[in-house]
């Protein structure tokens, strides 16, 4: 049988998917054990015990300086920034993308501007954001927004522009005005695409978040990673990276599930 025709059953699919991850963990353990045999004080590839010990301090013991549980404070701060950034981006991308997509004169006027802004590397704007908004929360949220919004706008606008012409004509023969066309035809059909767009932007959003936190912050997952890097604390960095990956996967899963629940028609309803 050709490989393109091989189907994987659900249970087997889980096993197959888990195998490479398990293999990776195993390879790490073997490498770590080998290094520790040569040098019991090795810091580059810490053993799970050392990681658990280091993380326990951050998870359960309040920091003597601030009195906070650092791990949770970091997680909360980062998720808050990410949430604000994604929320503001999604909302503005929806509004601007819809207007650009539906109204040809607006598209002709502002389309080139959005394209031009989208090609600026957002990190290059970070100094401007720090100068404009100071080193506080605003600049970090702004970096996420500046980083992902232009692409989301273009995505939504392109999706709306690509709606079948027949559908828009039909709506007009049913008496729809420009506003009703936007509200009743374009907006609902943009929503599943917006969620898709947010899912794809999650990766870049995390990049901008960690970058902003690494450069100027006093709390946050990215801040902690770059702080402990000075002490070669791989026993903290590795669990943090795994935690970030887990958070990203959970957010992505929630968005995908939400989209299927809210917009069943966009996911082959009923079939």
């Amino acid at each position, binding site marked *: 049988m050709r490989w393109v025709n091989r189907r994987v059953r659900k249970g087997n699919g889980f096993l197959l998917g888990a195998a490479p991850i398990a293999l990776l963990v195993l390879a790490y353990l073997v490498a770590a054990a080998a290094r520790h045999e040569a040098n019991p004080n090795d810091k580059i590839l810490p053993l799970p015990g050392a990681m658990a010990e280091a993380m326990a301090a951050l998870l359960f013991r309040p920091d003597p300086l601030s009195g906070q549980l650092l791990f949770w404070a970091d997680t909360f701060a980062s998720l808050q920034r990410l949430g604000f950034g994604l929320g503001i981006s999604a909302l503005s991308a929806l509004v601007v993308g819809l207007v650009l997509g539906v109204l040809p004169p607006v598209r002709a006027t502002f389309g080139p501007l959005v394209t031009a802004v989208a090609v600026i590397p957002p990190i290059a704007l970070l100094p401007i954001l720090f100068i404009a908004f100071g080193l506080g929360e605003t600049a970090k949220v702004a970096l996420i927004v500046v980083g992902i919004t232009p692409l989301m706008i273009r995505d939504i606008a392109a999706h709306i522009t690509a709606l079948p012409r027949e559908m828009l004509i*039909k*709506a007009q*023969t*049913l*008496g729809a*005005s420009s506003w*009703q066309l936007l509200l009743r035809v374009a907006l*609902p059909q943009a929503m599943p695409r917006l969620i898709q767009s947010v899912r794809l932007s999650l990766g870049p959003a995390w990049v901008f978040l960690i970058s902003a936190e690494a450069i100027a912050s006093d709390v946050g997952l990215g801040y902690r990673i770059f702080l402990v890097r000075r002490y070669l604390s791989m026993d903290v960095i590795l669990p943090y990276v795994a935690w970030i990956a887990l958070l990203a996967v959970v957010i992505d899963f929630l968005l995908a599930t939400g989209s299927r629940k809210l917009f069943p028609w966009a996911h082959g*309803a*009923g079939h």
Partner: protein
Amino acid sequence: MSALLRLRDVWVEYGDKVVIEGITLDIEAGSFVSIVGPSGAGKSSLLRVILGQEAPTRGSIRLDGAPLAPECGPDRGVVFQRYSVFPHLSVLRNTMFGLECAEAPFTGRLFGARRRAAAAEAEEMLTAVGLGDSLHLYPAEMSGGMQQRLAIAQALIKRPRILLLDEPFGALDPGIRTDMHALVTRLWREYALTIIMVTHDIKEAFTLGTRVLALDKRRHDPHAPHRFGATTVYDLPLKKPLATQALDGSSITIDSKDNN
């Protein structure tokens, strides 16, 4: 007899390409006009011009004596071969759309008693096209024939002066197509519609229509094939339009003696 739609010397040109040249046409209320012709003969262009999706390059079009605005409006309903229904709305909401647009200019949605009235009207229309049992399905859950039934119901609820059909049954299989022919004929008589239908299917054109128009190029320049447009080469009246037909109670199937 007064014509509902009058086309006077209508030309459609794209740059130096002439698609339609000098079509002059009177369409009476209650008639069912089939438009046939080879691909690229401007059938769909003619329909688009009547629909208001495009303005004619030259010539005038009058509906009920008033010049047509070059924009689609609720006086001309349309059913396309595909993409005529909204995928994000259920069958009932798809049909209510036209009523909601008219009555709720700002929100585009109706609430309370007015919503119930619109839903009842939509349900009645859906029952008439045979979708009374599928009110809460989404278009993606329905067959092509059901989607076209929905598209027709959606258009008819606005009581358009003219219903334009652009190869409405082209994508359907033959059995379903026969059902749809019966449906369209019944609706045409019950609602006293004026229908203009573009089709590739000659048999369909003659079975359904009271009048068949054939579009083609009268002249052809082999060195510049785009310089001559299509016009009506045949205009065959088959039957009397609806209004007179209803009086003498004749069948709507083709009488071979009337078929010149």
